[in-house]
C-alpha cells in the first residue's frame, strides 16, 4: 500500500526520514536510522549485492543497532479502518446530541428505535461471524513439524537476545523457537523497512514457536515487546537475512 503524500509528509515530521534498504521500496526512500543521511543511503544502493549486506549491517551498527520504524501495510489498513469507524461514531453521537433537545413522543422513539435495533443487532452479528470466522483461517500460531524450515532458537534474558543462528538465507521458511531464561519478554520482529511483521512472547519454562517466511534480504530488527525491567526499551538485537 502506497502512502499518500500528506501522510508521508506527516510521517517525516514525526519520525524522521524513511528508510529504504535497497533504494527501491519503502514509503519515501531514505536512510537507516537517525544518523545516516539520504545521500549515504543512495551511495550504498549502488554497491553490488554482496556488499549490500555488509553495508546494511554496518549501517545498523553505526546507528546503534536502531532502525527507524515505518508503517506497514496491514497496520495502515487497520489504522484507516479504525479512523473511519471512529469518525462515523463521532458523527452519530453529534447527530444524536443535536436531536436530543427536540421533543418527540416516547412511543414514536420506541417504535422506530426497536425496529432499528433488530437490524443493528443483525448487522453486528453478521460482521462478527465474518470477522471472527475469517480470522480463524489466518492464525499466526506455528503448526506441524519443523521439517523443511530453518530453525532459529531465540532466547531472551535481561536485557539481551540470543539468536542461533543469527543469519539465514533470504526466502527461508523460518521457525523461531522462542524462550526466556528469566522473565517474560516479547520477541517483536521488524523487517528491513522498519515494519513490525509479527511478535511472539518469550516465556520462561515454555517454548513459543513462530513461523515466518523471510523473503527479503537485509537486517531485521528485534525489539522487546513485554515489560521486562530497567532496560526494556533498549533490549534489541538483529537478524541478518542474506541473499541466496
Amino acid at each position, binding site marked *: 500500500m502506497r502512502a499518500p503524500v500528506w501522510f508521508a509528509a506527516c510521517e517525516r515530521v514525526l519520525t524522521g526520514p524513511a528508510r529504504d534498504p535497497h533504494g527501491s521500496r519503502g514509503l519515501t526512500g531514505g536512510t537507516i536510522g537517525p544518523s545516516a543521511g539520504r545521500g549515504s543511503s543512495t551511495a550504498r544502493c549502488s554497491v553490488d549485492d554482496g556488499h549490500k549486506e555488509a553495508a546494511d549491517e554496518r549501517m545498523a551498527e553505526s546507528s546503534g543497532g536502531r532502525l*527507524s520504524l515505518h508503517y506497514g501495510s496491514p497496520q495502515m489498513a487497520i489504522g484507516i479502518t479504525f479512523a473511519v469507524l471512529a469518525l462515523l461514531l463521532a458523527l452519530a453521537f453529534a447527530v444524536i446530541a443535536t*436531536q436530543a433537545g427536540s421533543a418527540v413522543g416516547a412511543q414514536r422513539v420506541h417504535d422506530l428505535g426497536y425496529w432499528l435495533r433488530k437490524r443493528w443487532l443483525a448487522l453486528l452479528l453478521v460482521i*462478527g461471524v465474518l470477522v471472527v470466522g475469517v480470522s480463524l483461517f489466518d492464525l499466526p500460531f506455528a503448526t506441524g513439524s519443523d521439517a523443511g524450515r530453518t530453525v532459529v532458537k531465540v532466547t531472551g534474558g535481561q536485557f539481551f537476545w540470543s539468536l542461533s543462528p543469527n543469519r539465514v538465507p533470504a526466502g527461508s521458511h523460518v521457525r523461531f523457537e522462542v524462550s526466556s531464561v528469566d522473565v517474560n519478554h516479547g520477541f517483536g520482529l521488524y523487517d528491513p523497512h522498519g515494519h513490525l511483521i509479527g511478535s511472539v512472547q518469550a516465556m520462561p519454562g515454555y517454548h513459543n514457536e513462530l513461523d515466518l517466511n523471510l523473503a527479503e534480504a537485509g537486517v531485521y530488527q528485534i525489539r522487546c515487546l513485554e515489560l521486562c525491567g530497567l532496560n526494556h526499551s533498549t533490549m534489541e538485537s538483529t537478524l541478518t537475512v542474506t541473499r541466496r
Partner: protein
Amino acid sequence: MEGTVTAFGEALHPRAIAFTGAAQGIERRLGLLFAGTGIALVAGMGVLGLIMRLTQATVIGLSPGWFYRVLTLHGVGMITGVLLAMMGALWYVLHATVPLSTGRMLTTYSLTIAGVLAVLIATLIGGFGAGWAFLPPLPFYPAGQWSVWSESLFFVGNLLVGAGFCVFCIDVLERTTNTYGGLFRTLGWHYLRGRDKEAPPPQAIAATVVAIDGLISCAVGSTILLGLLGRTYDHAVGIDALVAKNLVYFFGHSIANLTIYLGAAVIYVLVPRYAGRQYETTKVFVAGWTGSLVFIATAYSHHLYMDFVQPTWADVVSEVASYGALIPVAVITIYSMTMLIWGSSFHWTLASTLLYVGFAGWAIGGVGAVIDSIIPINFRLHNTTWVVAHFHTYLILCVVVWAVAFLAHLLERDAGRTTSRALRAWTVGLILVGGYGLTGTWFVEGALGVPRRYAIQPSGTSGYSVVGASFALLLALGFLILFLQFIRLARAAWERRQHVLVDHFDSWTGTHYQARGLRADDGPTLETAGQSRRGVPLASHAQLGFGLAACIVALASFFPQVIDASEVSNRYHHLDHAGQFLLGGMLGVLLGSLPAVSRRLGDHSSLGLLAVLVAPMLMMAVMVPRIYEPLEGDPLEHALYHLAMAGFGFLTGLGATRLGLVTGRIMFALSVGMPLMFAAAMK
C-alpha cells in the same frame, strides 16, 4: 410536586420528578467521599502520566528506573481511583432500592486507601517497577531496582485493594439477591422465562453481574498475589509462568473492565434524570447482561494471544468473547441510552453533558479494543501503543468522564443549578480535543509499531510524544476548568444546604418576614435498614446429603497414601491441601446449614464475610514449603499442619453459611477454587 421541582432547581429534567426520590444524606456523603477521593487519585496519577509522556518526548529526563516506578504507580493508582469513584456512584444509585451496608462500604474505603498507600510506598520509596500487571516472575528480577520488602508491600497493597473490592461485591451480591428473591430472580432470568411479571430495576441486575464477576476476579487475584507473596519469603518456590500470567490478566483485565460496567449500572439511573424518561428493564436487557456476565469473565485471554503455548481453544473463546462483549454494549446500553435521549428535550447540564460524552468514549475505545482482539491483527499490534490507546480512550474518555459526571451530578443537585453554558462548552471541548488527541497519537504510534512501556522511545518517534504531551496539557486544562466549576457548585451547594429560609416575627413592628437560618444537620446514618433472612447454602435434605457425600470424598486427602504421594512435588502437595480445605469447608457448610445450628449461630453476616475473606488467604499464606517442610519431620506437627488446612476450610464454610444461599455458595465455591489455582500456578 412543585416543592420537589424547586428542590431539583435547574439540576434535573422537570419530568424526572416522577421517578427521582430525594437522595439520603448517607448516599450523598458516601458518594462524595468515594468520588472525591477517586477523582483526586486519578488527577494525581494523570500528572504522573504527563510526566511519563514528557519523558518519552525527551522534554524532561526521568531515568528508566524512575520511569518504571511511576508507570507502576500510575497503573495501579488509576485503576484504583476509577474503581473507588465508580463504587461510590453505584452505591449511590443502588442504595435507594437495596439496603446496602454503610459499615461495609466504609470498610471497602479503608482497605482500598490502605492498599493505595502501600503501593505508593512500594513504588516511590521502595523502587518497585514491574508494572501494574507485575507479570511473574518479573517482580523477582529487580535488576537492582527494588528490594524484597518493596515487592512484598506491593503485593500486600494489591491484596488490600482487591479485598476492598471483594467486600463491596459481597455486600452488593448479598443484598441484591436478598431484596429480589435469589440469584435467578435478581439477574432477571425468571422474568426472561415469563415466570415473573416484573423484573428488578436495571441497576440491580447490572450490579449483580458486576459483583459476581468482581468476586471471581478477586479470588483469582488473591490467589496469585498470595503465591507471589509466599515466593518473596521462600525463593525456592517455582512459578508456572503461563498459569501465573493467566491469573494475573484475569484479575487485572477484569477489574479494569469492570470499572466500565460499574459505570454502566450508574448511567441507567442518572441519564433518565436528564432525559425525563425512565429506563425500564426489558427481556433484551436481561439477555444482554447475562451475556456480559459470561463475556467479562472470558475475554481476558486476549492478553495471551502471543503466548502460543496457550491452548488455541482458549484464544478462540477469548476472541469470540471479546467481540461478544461488544454486542450488549452496542445494542443495549449505548443504543438504548441514545433512544432515551433522542427527542427527549434533554436537559443539558454539566453532569449530563459529561455522561453523554462518556458514551462516545466507550464506543470509540471499544472499537479500538475489538480490533485489537482479532488474533491476526493482534499479531501486528500486540503490546504496541495501540493497546495503550484503546484502554486510555475508554478509561479517560468514558470512565473518568463518568466519574466526574457523577460528582457533577451530586454537586448540581445540591446546588440546584448548573454552570454556565460557555464554561461547559470549554470544558467539554478541551476534554474532547485533548483526550482524543492524546489517545490518537498512541493509535498512530501503535500502527507504526512503537512498543508500549518504553522509557526511551525508539529513535525518531519522540515527535509523537511531544504531540501527545501537548494534547495531554489541553486535557489537563479541561479538567482544571471543570474542577473550578466544581468549587463554585460546591460553594453554592454549601450555601443551599446550610441555610434555609426561616419565618420570623418582628414584635416591634408586628410584621412577619423570612430570613436565612442554619439548617439542622440530618447527620450521617451509620447503618441502613436490616435485611430479611436469606437461607443457607445447603437448604434441603438432598443438598445436605450432597454436602455429606462431598465430605466423604474429600476425606481421601487425609489418607496416608495420598499424603505420601503428594510429597512428590509442591504442586501435588498443594492439591492435597486443597482437598483438606474442601473437607473442612464442606463440614463447615454442612454444620452451619443445619437448621438448629443455623438458628443458634444467628445473623452474623459480617463475621461470615470476615471468615470467607481471611481464612482462605491465611491458608494460602502458609502454603509455602519453607513453612511446612520443617514440620514434616515430626508426625504430630505434620498432622496438625494438615488439620489446620481443614480448619481454615471449616471457618470458611461456616462463614459462608452466614452470607445466605447465593453469596454463601458462590464464596465457598471460589474459596475452594483458590487453592486449586494456587496449585496450578506455584510449583
